[in-house]
């Protein structure tokens, strides 16, 4: 067996090495994509889980206020928590976000699209003895906080201190509501465990200091609770939580500290769905390329296998040889894929970090993941080689005696179309009729991808004749007499034509899908972002801004309107009765509509009316995402927790809003004041008077109030630019994958056309002998490729649109984003032109090869 393998398989690989490498390319990419995505996902999830676990330390429960307004609550409750049975320790915290005085923050743009807000400096006011019992700090220099210090003290994360050029003993100047205050840097901690809070921009100071500097009087923001039993099981923890909740009453919420991590985990999913889907397709494309290459090799080696059969090789031996070749390919391809995957994972991780605004640490490659990728790669290869292997086994010895060039058209060509039609109809019906709930459908979706591609592929052979007759005149016109000759050649080996067309089809489908998805998503996002970042100047601050700042800005020369916006978290009761968090976006509707506008979603009849209604009492808008996800509509009630308990708000409009993953409701400024007792603003959108230069006005505001109120001003153009850039980065990954599949598709064209030329050597020689010029031969091959490009382009367009639909269904299911599939006509034109261009470029090497055919040699050929 080994010797035979060495002689037949190894030599065959060596003789056809380019093709071998080409097919390996497919599997390498598939495996790499899969592994990289798995590893990146794991790293992202792990980092989030560890982040929340290590930053919460030994605390198993956390107490926060249930009131929506300022967030802090009186110290009094501490005693009650402390004495509750089962509680070992109640650790009081003041949590503030500020900045160093000399450190004007980079504009704190938070699209809330992909991740949590980061930036600025997070400071915790702690009781040192209790804090160190709750969380394990790693001191790298100096000492931890003293219980009763004589001066203001602070401990910072070492990396952050180094970044800001602060060393032990320095005075750290921070912004407080009462101006700049100085604290002595007494210790440095490592960026691990609690040091990872706020991405390492973090420090601690004594509780008293924090309360004093940040006007918290005797108030707290949070109490971390360490339990007597350090490792309670779920049931025990739940009952303790219930007890505590009873004990402290409805004014407080007792929550699990890691609960905050769940949202981020969910956010990741959206992106992952897309990537997973893509790598699935990459693997399919890889499998396809392998099938293609093996099928070609079998055609090429038909006589050889036939001869081997005449001299006594059994069917099983032949099949085994093909599988050995596939095995070698699978092993090498998968191994290289793992290597590439490691590299790819690095890039993906970086991208993920940007998107999530969160460091991910190192990516670990778990050996089960690697093993899984290897086995999958090998499995797919063997599977893809299965049909060609089976065909190779069925080559009869008589085949060796036939004159070359006569390839048998098997039952797959003759009867395959019925199967193809069934698959196609089945897939489309499944998609159009929607008989299953969304999530089942998405899972079926991946199967449908295979059904679709396979179905379309099987239909190619029977339709080739029709395609050819329709386009023959065009080919004749474009490429002359030899063009229609080339066009006719397409019909000669329908197997080969099918393989080429299918390769192109998959490539085009990928591009259509990716472009369609990116376009739809990005256009929705752009519309929203334009409104969300309306006006000309975007004003934020790392400390809270009183509403009267808005009035002052309004008075600045050249300002047309100022719209304050305030975001805050609010609890709500879902229609199923659960309590969840939402983001409330409060705007001064009158001012807001002067600066920008809400983007009403769908079949909103009267915007004017909705804008009137929202300014009335007890009304809100909800995002399209919420509406879709919870099946809410205009006139329905939304139950929000206000400062005085739960209250129903009437939904008077549905708007496009992707803030906070779309988990957002919008209300009037007055509504916020009255029901949530909030008065300050998070952001001001400023619109400049017509004819005024926005940069000038921006300068003016900065000069007057920038320093005083610690404002950060940025032109909306630049903010939008950054946001779009962020988005583009997220989508680039998809584009790369689409590009890969086009490359793979074009390699398929090179492959099959070269085969076709080799097979026809004698015929081409004859054509040359009777006076066909080299140019004519080239045109003949190009025409053949053009026709295949056209068929592949059109089929790819069809399958691509359907695939995009599947992907959209998946996205909607998981995230609630209701995307409308938009495929611009220029996209259609582009993909068709691209298919043609790719086919032409790919046809050049085989065409040149054909033109170089030496007449005598070819005619004497056997």
């Amino acid at each position, binding site marked *: 067996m080994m010797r035979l393998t060495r002689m037949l398989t190894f030599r065959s690989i060596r003789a056809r090495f380019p093709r071998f490498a080409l097919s390996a390319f497919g599997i390498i990419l598939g495996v790499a994509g899969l592994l990289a995505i798995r590893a990146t996902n794991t790293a992202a999830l792990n980092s989030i889980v560890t982040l929340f676990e290590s930053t919460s330390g030994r605390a198993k429960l956390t107490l926060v206020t249930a009131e929506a307004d300022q967030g802090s609550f009186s110290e009094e409750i501490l005693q009650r928590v402390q004495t509750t049975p089962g509680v070992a320790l109640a650790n009081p915290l003041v949590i503030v976000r500020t900045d160093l005085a000399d450190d004007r923050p980079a504009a704190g743009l938070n699209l809330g699209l992909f991740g949590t807000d980061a930036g600025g400096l997070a400071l915790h006011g702690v009781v040192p003895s209790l804090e160190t019992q709750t969380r394990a700090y790693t001191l790298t220099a100096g000492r931890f906080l003293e219980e009763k210090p004589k001066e203001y003290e602070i401990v910072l994360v070492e990396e952050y201190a180094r970044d800001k050029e602060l060393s032990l003993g320095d005075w750290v100047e921070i912004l407080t509501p009462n101006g700049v205050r100085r604290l002595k840097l007494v210790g440095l901690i490592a960026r691990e465990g609690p040091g990872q809070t706020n991405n390492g921009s973090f420090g601690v100071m004594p509780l008293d200091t924090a309360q004093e500097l940040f006007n918290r009087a005797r108030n707290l923001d949070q109490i971390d609770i360490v339990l007597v039993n350090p490792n309670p099981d779920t049931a025990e923890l739940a009952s303790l939580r219930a007890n505590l909740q009873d004990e402290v009453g409805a004014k407080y919420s007792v929550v699990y500290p890691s609960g905050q991590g769940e949202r981020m985990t969910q956010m990741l999913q959206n992106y992952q769905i897309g990537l997973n889907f893509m790598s699935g397709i990459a693997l399919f494309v890889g499998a396809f390329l392998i099938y293609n290459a093996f099928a070609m090799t079998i055609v090429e080696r038909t006589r050889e296998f036939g*001869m081997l059969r005449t001299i006594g090789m059994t069917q099983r031996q032949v099949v085994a040889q093909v599988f050995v070749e596939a095995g070698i390919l699978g092993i090498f391809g998968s191994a290289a894929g793992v290597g590439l995957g490691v590299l790819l994972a690095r890039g993906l991780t970086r991208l993920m970090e940007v998107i999530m605004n969160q460091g991910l640490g190192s990516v670990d490659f778990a050996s089960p993941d690697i093993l899984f990728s290897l086995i999958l790669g090998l499995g797919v290869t063997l599977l893809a080689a299965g049909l060609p292997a089976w065909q190779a086994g069925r080559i009869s010895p008589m085949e060796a005696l036939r004159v070359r060039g006569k390839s048998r058209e098997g039952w797959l060509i003759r009867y395959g179309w019925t199967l193809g039609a069934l698959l196609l109809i089945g897939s489309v019906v499944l998609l159009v009729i929607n008989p299953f709930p969304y999530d089942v459908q998405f899972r079926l979706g991946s199967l449908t991808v295979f059904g679709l591609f396979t179905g379309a592929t099987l239909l190619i052979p029977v339709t080739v004749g029709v395609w050819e007759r329709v386009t023959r005149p065009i080919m004749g016109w474009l490429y002359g007499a030899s063009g229609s000759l080339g066009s006719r050649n397409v019909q000669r080996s329908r197997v080969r034509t099918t393989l080429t067309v299918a390769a192109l089809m998959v490539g085009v489908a990928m591009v259509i899908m990716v472009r369609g998805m990116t376009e739809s998503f990005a256009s929705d996002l752009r519309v929203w972002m334009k409104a969300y970042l309306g006006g000309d100047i975007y004003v934020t601050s790392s400390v809270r801004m009183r509403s009267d700042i808005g009035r002052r800005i309004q008075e600045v020369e050249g300002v047309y309107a100022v719209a304050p916006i305030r975001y805050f978290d609010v609890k709500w009761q879902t229609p199923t009765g659960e309590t969840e968090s939402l983001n409330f976006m409060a705007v001064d509707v009158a001012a807001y509509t002067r600066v920008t506008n809400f983007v009403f979603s769908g079949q909103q009849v009267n915007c004017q009316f909705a804008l009137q209604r929202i300014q009335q009492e007890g009304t809100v808008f909800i995002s399209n995402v919420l509406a879709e996800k919870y099946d809410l509509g205009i006139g329905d009630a939304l139950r929000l927790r206000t400062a005085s308990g739960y209250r129903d708000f009437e939904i008077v409009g549905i708007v496009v809003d992707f803030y906070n993953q779309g988990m957002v409701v919008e209300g009037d400024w007055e509504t916020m004041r009255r029901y949530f007792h909030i008065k300050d603003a998070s952001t001001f959108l400023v619109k400049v008077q017509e004819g005024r230069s926005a940069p000038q006005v921006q300068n003016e505001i900065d000069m007057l109030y920038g320093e005083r109120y610690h404002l950060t001003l940025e032109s909306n153009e630049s903010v939008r630019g950054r946001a779009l850039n962020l988005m583009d980065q997220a989508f680039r990954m998809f584009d790369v994958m689409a590009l890969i599949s086009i490359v793979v598709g074009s390699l398929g064209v090179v492959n099959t056309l070269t085969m076709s030329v080799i097979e026809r050597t004698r015929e081409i020689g004859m054509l040359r002998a009777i006076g066909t010029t080299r140019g004519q031969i080239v045109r003949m091959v190009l025409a053949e490729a053009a026709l295949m490009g056209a068929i592949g382009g059109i089929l790819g367009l069809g399958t691509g649109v359907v695939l995009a639909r599947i992907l959209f269904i998946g996205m909607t299911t998981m995230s609630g984003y209701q995307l409308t599939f938009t495929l611009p006509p220029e996209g259609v034109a582009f993909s068709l032109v691209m298919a043609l261009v790719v086919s032409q470029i790919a046809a050049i090497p085989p065409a040149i090869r054909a033109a170089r055919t030496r007449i005598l040699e070819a005619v004497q050929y056997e």
Partner: protein
Amino acid sequence: MPVLEAKDLRKEYKLGGHRVNALEGINFQVEKGEFVAIMGPSGSGKSTLLHLLGGLDSPSSGGITLAGQNLARLSEHKATLVRRHNVGFVFQFFNLLPTLSAEENILLPVIIDGKDPRKYKERLARLLELVGLQDRRHHKPDQLSGGEQQRVAIARALVTEPAILLADEPTGNLDTKTGTAIMELLRRSCDELQQTVIAVTHDARAAAYADRVIFLRDGSIVHERTADSEEAFGPRLRGILETMEQLEAV
């Protein structure tokens, strides 16, 4: 006991609705060490007959006994094994593996059989000497002339010491001089190795090397001519040509 026996062999092809009777009841026997030529005009069924004898295809009816086994009744797999051990094929187109050297091509049947080719050193040396390719043994097919390639094919067919060697127009693709050399080679393998040979040809010169010539026409044996063992090449050839003329006249 004959090495090969065909009994009432019939082969019928279905070609787009109508049937073609390629063979219509063939009967004959071949003894060990015999050199038989099959002659006949194009389309008379020579190749079909050879394919049936070698187990490449199965007859519509009738029986073939090769080395004691009825080929017509064997499964595909069994037939393959019979081919592997008992039949050697030589075709008009040489059908060598382009990636293997001459020597490797010759040893291929042994390797396919899972045997150690090193044990076949003597046999290989003997065959290389027989076909006269000792100094070309490491050449690849594309470095060999047509005649040399055909000699490699013959050596390959002989390597397993098959019960029978079947050659279909082995000289059909060669010039006269090279063709003569190939026929002489087959003659020698018969004489020196006691190899049973059946060769299909429509060339009277080639057929003159055989002990017995079977004339085929429209799928039936129309004549058999057994040469006198003392008969020289010239008279043999003349005899064959005369027979052909007679058959032509009928």
